[in-house]
C-alpha cells in the first residue's frame, strides 16, 4: 500500500471520520477547512498519527504548515523524511 492510501486509511480510523471512505478523499483536497473539514485540534491528532504510523516527527510549524496541506503534500513530506 502506498503512503497516500495508508494515510487516508489511518486518518479515517484514528480521527474517527464517519461516513468517509479512502476513495472519497482526494489527493489534492485541502485537509483543513473546506475539503476534508479537519479543524485545528485534528491537526494535533494528525501530527501524532503521522509519528505513530510512519515514524516521522513533525517538529514545528515550519515543517508542519507546508506538509499539512493535502494528502499529497503530507505523503511527500513523510517520504522525504523516511528517505532522509
Amino acid at each position, binding site marked *: 500500500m502506498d503512503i497516500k492510501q495508508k494515510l487516508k486509511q489511518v486518518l479515517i480510523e*484514528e*480521527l*474517527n*471520520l464517519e461516513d468517509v471512505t479512502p476513495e472519497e478523499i482526494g489527493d489534492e483536497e485541502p485537509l*483543513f477547512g473546506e475539503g476534508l473539514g479537519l*479543524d*485545528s*485540534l*485534528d*491537526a*494535533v*491528532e494528525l*501530527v*501524532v498519527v503521522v509519528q505513530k504510523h510512519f515514524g516521522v*516527527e*513533525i*517538529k*514545528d*510549524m515550519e515543517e*508542519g*504548515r507546508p506538509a*499539512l496541506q493535502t494528502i499529497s503534500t503530507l505523503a511527500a513530506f513523510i517520504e522525504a523524511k523516511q528517505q532522509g
Partner: protein
Amino acid sequence: MLKQSNDKNSWSSRSIGSGWQHRAFYLTIKLGGRKAAYLMLYFVVAWYVLFSPLARARAGHYLARRFPESSGLQRLWHCYRLILEFGKVLIDRAVVGILGAESFQVCLDGREELLELCAENRGMILMTAHVGCWQLAMSALEFLQRPVNMLMRREDGDIDRHYYEHAGIPCPYQVIDPTGYLGGTLEMLGVLKQGQILSVMGDRLLGSDKSSTPVDFLGEPAPLPFSAYKLASATGAPLVIFFTRKTGPDSYRVQLAKVLRVPQIKGRSTEHFAPYVQEFAVVLEEFSRQHPYQFYNFHNMWSGSQSEPAEQE
C-alpha cells in the same frame, strides 16, 4: 476604569479606560508610587461603579453567580470591591514595570514539584485563569530556566501596557496567536515537543466554539476550552493549574493548585475531555469562593459567545 464600547461583544484594554486615563495612572505611579495610584483608584472606581451601567453589567456576569443571594446595594458593593481589586492588579502590573519587580514580594508554592515536572522533558502546560496577576506568575518561573510561550492575542490599538513595555525590556515570553494558522496548535505542539512551557488561560475561549465543552461552573454550565487538554493528551505533557493571588498591598502568592495527567485519547469526540475540564472548573470555583474579589473574567462565560479575540487581561 471601564469605558463604553460600540461593539457589545468587545473587551479590550480600551474597555478599561482611555489613553489619558492610563497615562494619568502611570504618571501618578512615577511621582507618588503605588499608594498614590491606589488612592486615586478608590475614587475612579467609585465613579465608574455608580455611573457606568456597562461596568456593572460586565462585573455582573460573575457576581450574579458568585453572590446569587445579593441584590441592590449589596451587589453594588460587590461590584465596587471586584473592580477595585482588579484596578489594583493593573496598577501593580504597571508598578513592576515602572519601579521594578522588587516592589513586590512574590511567594511560590510548589517550586520543587514544578522542577520535577520540568525534568520530565515533556514540556509543561501552565493552565492559568483571569485571577490575580499572571505577569507576576510568569516572573516567578524564571528559576525553571525554560522558555515560556503564551497563547494570547493583543488587539489593534491596545493602550494598556504590559510590565516589560513599561520597563523597556524585551518581551520575556514568546506569544502564540490563537487566530494564527490552525489556531496556533502546531506552534503549541512544537514548543511542548521541545520541552518548553506553554501558558494558556483555561477560563476563556480564544478560538472556535467547537473547541469548548460545557462544564459546571458556579452552578451553571459554562463552555470552557479544551484544546490544552488535547495537547496534553497528545504530548504527555503535564497540565499544571497555576493561580496567583494578591495577599497584601505589596505581596502576591503563586500557587500550584493541581497537576492533571491526561491520557492518550483518540478521535474527535469532545466528551472524553470534559472530566478534565471539569476538574479545572472545580479548582477555579474553589479559588473564587476563597478569593471572591480576585476573579477578573468580565466576559459572560456562561453565554457561550465569548470567542471574540481579546488579550489576556
